[in-house]
């Protein structure tokens, strides 16, 4: 697969996962028997999209990132790697596990009546949204770090 493709797929899947998590959040706020199926489908979509983001981003990171890392570290924005990439690549694991757990929690038979289960789902969905947005922002800084590095060569 060309590196540009996996590089574009990663944030695309990530942003779609964020949107799906927002969908879960809103559906859970209005949880009732009639929308349980949608809550569970949207939760599965979050998990699937995050795993796709993990595989596409992970492939690019493991196979192609070394060259970009060298450019960033030699350029005027070394913190794009030293802080943003390092933090992003490890915080992503929390996001992936939150997304993996979301459909499990959504399959709880105590829904939609149990306030605790609803609170749990809202918490996990909200964390997916916030961490997902943070990942997108960090990715943007990393891309700028590469660009700054190339422009000063």
């Amino acid at each position, binding site marked *: 697969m060309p590196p540009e493709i996996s590089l574009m797929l990663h944030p695309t899947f990530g942003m779609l996962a964020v949107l799906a998590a927002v969908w879960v959040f809103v559906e859970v706020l209005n949880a009732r028997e009639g929308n349980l199926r949608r809550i569970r489908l949207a939760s599965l979509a979050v998990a699937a999209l995050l795993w796709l983001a993990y595989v596409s981003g992970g492939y690019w990171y493991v196979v192609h990132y070394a060259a970009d890392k060298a450019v960033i570290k030699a350029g005027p924005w070394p913190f794009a790697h030293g*802080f943003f990439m390092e933090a992003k690549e490890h915080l992503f694991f929390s996001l992936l596990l939150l997304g993996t757990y979301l459909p499990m929690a959504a399959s709880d038979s105590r829904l939609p009546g149990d306030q605790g289960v609803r609170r749990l789902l809202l918490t996990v969905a909200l964390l997916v949204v916030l961490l997902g947005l943070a990942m997108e922002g960090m990715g943007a800084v990393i891309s700028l770090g590469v660009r700054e590095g190339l422009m000063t060569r």
Partner: protein
Amino acid sequence: MTIPPKYITSFGLSLALVNLFNAALVVLKETDEGVLAGMKAATGHHWVTHGLVLLVLFVALGWLLAYLKPARRAGEPSGVAVAVLVSTVLGGMVIAGYFLVAGWLGAAS
């Protein structure tokens, strides 16, 4: 398909514990070259090993905790929500804080 509540509790608590372990493993491998080298040797890339360790731990702890009797609120969905929230924020702060400090000191790889 529904999953029995005991697994939802156990995997939620497992998620919270793995969040904290993730942060601890980051600091450990970044400060101990032997650990980093071992993780690189295991799969060819430390990040791949890191992910595999966390995923295996998440599944193993999830199954194991399902057979333990949870203490007080930890077994309730609200307690699991608090554990997940606190561990995610704490783990995130440790990871971000570590690389912020390491960046200042110029130690990040």
